[in-house]
């Protein structure tokens, strides 16, 4: 009798839209089930470059001490990092920070010359998403920074198989502008920048 019950419950759980999922040692929780199915679907359509990345915990937001009322706060690397840490990875539902693509040390700022340099590390050597990630960084910073800053975006030296061409592509004004005019790419980039679902 008990086995029959379990099977019936399992069937009902899987069939209907639920508020409840029944956690039992003989039953896999629904959420896991769904996620597995999603992942399989995704894999079939896209073919993930890095199917199982290492995910780090989100760091606590930096709480700045009450700034001095009479002094200007210059732009510092942490500011820039705040802007870009929450960009979503194009193929995973995690932020660039969680995937360790970016860290606090990856941003350098030269306030005198108005130059900003970002070095990011793709999750795998042959990552074809590197250019998309770079494009997202550029689009996001474009929105957050005044015009007089020059932004250089590079992959960390040695972290990508095709380092030079990626770097060249990311820092070529014409090619970036062309990429952003492509509606498909634009949509992908916007999704990554504005995604709040994480």
């Amino acid at each position, binding site marked *: 009798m008990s086995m029959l019950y379990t099977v019936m419950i399992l069937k009902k759980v899987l069939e209907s839209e639920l*508020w*409840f999922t029944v956690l039992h040692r003989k039953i896999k929780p629904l959420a896991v089930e769904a996620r597995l199915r999603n992942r399989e679907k995704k894999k079939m359509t896209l073919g993930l470059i890095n199917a199982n990345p290492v995910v780090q915990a989100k760091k606590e937001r930096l709480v700045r001490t009450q700034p001095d009322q009479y002094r200007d706060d210059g732009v510092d690397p942490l500011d820039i990092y705040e802007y870009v840490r929450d960009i979503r990875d194009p193929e995973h539902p995690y932020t660039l920070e969680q995937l360790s693509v970016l860290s606090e040390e990856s941003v350098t700022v030269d306030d005198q010359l108005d130059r900003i340099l970002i070095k990011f590390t793709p999750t795998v050597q042959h990552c074809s998403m590197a250019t998309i990630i770079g494009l997202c960084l550029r689009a996001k910073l474009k*929105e957050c920074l005044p015009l007089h800053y020059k932004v250089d975006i590079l992959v960390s030296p040695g972290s990508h198989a095709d380092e030079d061409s990626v770097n060249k592509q990311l820092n070529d004004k014409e090619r970036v502008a062309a990429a952003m005019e492509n509606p498909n790419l634009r949509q992908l980039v916007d999704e990554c920048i504005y995604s709040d679902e994480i």
Partner: protein
Amino acid sequence: MVETNQLTQYLETFVDITRSPTEQDDSRKAIASSLDNDSLSINQLVREMELYLTTTDNVVRARGILLLAEVLDSLKAKPLTNAIVHTLVGFFSEKLADWRALRGALVGCLALMKRKDVAGVVTHIDAQAMAKSMLQNVQLQALAPHDRKLGFELLEFLLQQYSEAMSTMGNLLVYATCEAIDGEKDPQCLIVAFHLIELLAQLFPSPSGPLASDASDLFEVFGCYFPLHFTHTKDDETNIRREDLARGLSLAISSTPLFEPYAIPLLLEKLSSSLPIAKVDSLKCLKDCAMKYGVDRMKKHYGALWSALKDTFYSSTGTHLSFALESITSPGFEINEIHNEAVSLLQRLVEQDISFLGFVVEDIRINTVFDTISRYSQFRGMPDTSKLEVLVISQILSVSAKASVQSCNIIFQTFFFRLMNTLGIVEKTSNGDVVQNGNFTVSTRLYHGGLHLCIELLAASKDLTLGFEECSPTPDCAQESWCSMVKRFSVPLIQVFASAVYSSSDDSVADVYLGVKGLLTMGMFWGGSSPVSRSEFEKILVTLTSIITSKSGKTMVWELALKALVWIGSFIDRYHETDKARSYMSIVVDKLVSLACSGHCGLPYPMMLEATSEVCSTGSKYVEKMVLGLEEAFCSSLSDFYVNGNFKSVDKCSHLLGCLTNKLLPRVAEIDGLEKLLVHFAISMWNQIESCGVFSCDFNGGEFVEAAITIMGQIVGIALVDSQNSIIQKAYRVVLSSTLAAMESIPLTFVALEDLQRDLSTRDELILSLFASIIIAASPAASIPDARSLIHLFLVSLHKGYIPAAQALGSMVNKLGRGTGGTYITSGCSLEEACDIIFQADFASGEKISSNGSGKIICGSETTLSKICLGFCGSLEHQTHAITGLAWIGKGLLMRGDERVNEIALVLVECLKSTNCSGHALHPSAMKHAADAFSILMSDSEVCLNRKFHAVIRPLYKQRFFSKIVPILESLIMNFQTPLSRKMLHVALAHVISNVPVTVILDNTKKLQPMILEGLSVLSIDSVEKETLFSLLLVLSGTLTDTKGQQSAEDNAHIIIECLVKLTSYPNLMVVRETAIQCLLALLELPHRRIYPFRIQVLQAIAKSLDDPKRRVRGEAIKCRQAWASITSTNIPF
């Protein structure tokens, strides 16, 4: 009698499913009401409905039965004969088999079940028949959620009210319940289902009953819900929360011991899961089960339970032990919910059965800790694993010891002696003498882990005594073995703790912390039979006090010791320990108060005062001692100052007053008798001032004067009316005896005022300010002697520019009684008279000031004071003083709702005009004062005229003034004015607008918004008015976020955006820029067609703000830019 036709019509309406629900509802109500007032009988209704109830058309039959059921539902209180009820029960029970009309049958059964006693109820036999039909015919899980819920509720009612009839059904009932619940997923149904199981368990408690045989199946059905996973958080109408469901499930699981073989293994397994919620639920449920299942059944699981509990303790405890000040009275490490539940489960298990303690005592892991604890001396130096061991085991032992006396004895017998040995503490000699220092050895090294364990054990036993002595008044624990053990070791223990306090090793913070915590614990044993004798208790106090008095900086140990003393003090006060209170008084309080009075100790004086006030505020006797001591000290140091000119004494006085204001005054309500003491203090302050004739030298003791004014005002504010009167009398005598009395006779002439230009002497100024602060704080019922001359005195001082005098005048006109009908007869001065004196005071000046009667109409009131304000006579300085004074007087009148404030407001407005009645504009500085006067009028003041100082406040006074003054200011701004006067008018308007409650603004947004916007642009020209500008901008932002305001914002969108865009680059105040950008963001709520044209303009302005020097502005700018860019489909061009 309802006409048959009409009834048929009602029936048709209800049965016809094409009609709207409201129509159906109405007809049902009509039928129910005619039944209720007996114009229709049930019999008639049923006869009339026959066709509907028996037709083969499924829909019509279902509706018909539902109608009958719902009508019955609304007649629950109407008496019916047993025969009718019986027939109805029979009918509905039978209809339970008719699955197409099931809803009606269920509703009908429920309606009958719910009937009141007096109105005819269902009999047991009927109920049994109904249950049988229900169990045989209804397949609950095949129904829709709402029907399922009805079915569960019906079962619940049957089990609750007809348990005897139900019990005869035995196995069938259990089996059917199993089937009904199996696979249920709706939370509302589940809540009822869990309760059903509880009821079933109550019904069949016997181990050989029907439940016993099916217990395994039943448990299988509902056990699978554990731990409850419920993610539905949105509030719907039922509002079921996860806690309710989890509680219901837990009650169901623990409902009968028959579930024990299935429940405990499941719970233990879930406890080992890594899901926090599963752990918490299992612990809670295990606690319930332990209570319900009983010791015998639980016993076989003890081994597994102990190891699971131990694991839970290990996984839920952190390795961080805090040595901070706050944690001296708490465990000192983070506690989460899992830990809490584990603690309460362990405590319950030990309380219930002492044999569970055997597992604790014999645990290998615990025993090894005791052997290895002396391996590391410093807590910091321990590896994380040992830290964890120490913390967890201290927790386990202290929780088990707290459970009962017996367990406490066992724990102490097993571990305490070993612990003492490990720490190298040797018991005192057998003859009971206190051992001299040399006679025993304290180990040279202190083992932090051991000390921590030891403190936790002591604290547990202390809590144990406190715990049950709250219920039994005769504490008697002296015979208990733990008590005698502690007694044997108390002397060396105190010595060890004391030596830890004085340690100076490299990790002295931990040493000191543990030392003080140990002393604190030893000092808080309760009652006469406590293991710590009085002499030892005194030794603890001496040690702690000496730390406070000897060290010369605000070190950790000083603060810790102070906190410990305060805790001991409040402990003594709470448990009324007279013996210990005496020791505390003589050792701690006397010593500290005497030091605070003499001030001769190594400690800085403010710290000494802090320590004294903290310690003394634990009991009312101590407070008395302290206030009297401070009074003496104050008098002596003040006289020291004016005799010897010792400036240090003045400093001391101001510290002393500050301490009283900050530490004691806020606690007047808590401490009995403090009010009288403080009044006495105030009077002796006046005595002292009276006796010091002349200050030997001038001093710039602004600090002292300020402290004195504050405390005087506060004391009068809290005092009763009688005490206020006595203070006022005393103060008035002092004023009379001073040179101030002479000022009362000074005629208000300019010549005389010019003569007064030299300042008052320091002493007179002090007396004047103190007296003003008394008048400000006095309640309306207090009597003021010789009010007329006092008003005169204040008026003269006002013209000399003493703000407190102006405030005192404001308070007086605010509180004086009206004419003869007023309450204020004793003083012999009514409000009318006071106003006459203030406004009509005859300036017998050499030059004639009035406008020589040429028929020119001057502003509303032709008073002398207003003439000075308008600059007809007197110097500029004189004028500004008069304006400010007038504002305070006006505030007093405004708050009580007196009409005269209108005249004052008109005078102030007149000051702002570019061409006023005097024919020329005022000096800019005078204008500025007049504009700021509106801020005085409208804003709430901290120093006077507030609730604390008994001001008379008429409701909505701000609103009234607002509606009067705003039209005047508005029309003036509209008329042509010079730029300066225009700006000043705007400042005045801004003060009025920003101080009025925001709802008033929202009601008038349409009219006000253009004015606010113009004000913003006028004020943003320079940086002088930046604060006013900001408060005005806040008002604007308030209107933009409200729906009412948004309507008018829609009309003014172009001006608003233009104005805000300008403010985004306002260089003088960061918050202005930030708020302006936030306002721009709020504007996006407006209709798209209205804001879209401004998109480019706004985006350009925001792009500049991205480069703002301040980080917060940049952050807001990014958000705003993103929002504005997203209102269109095209992106920002790349």
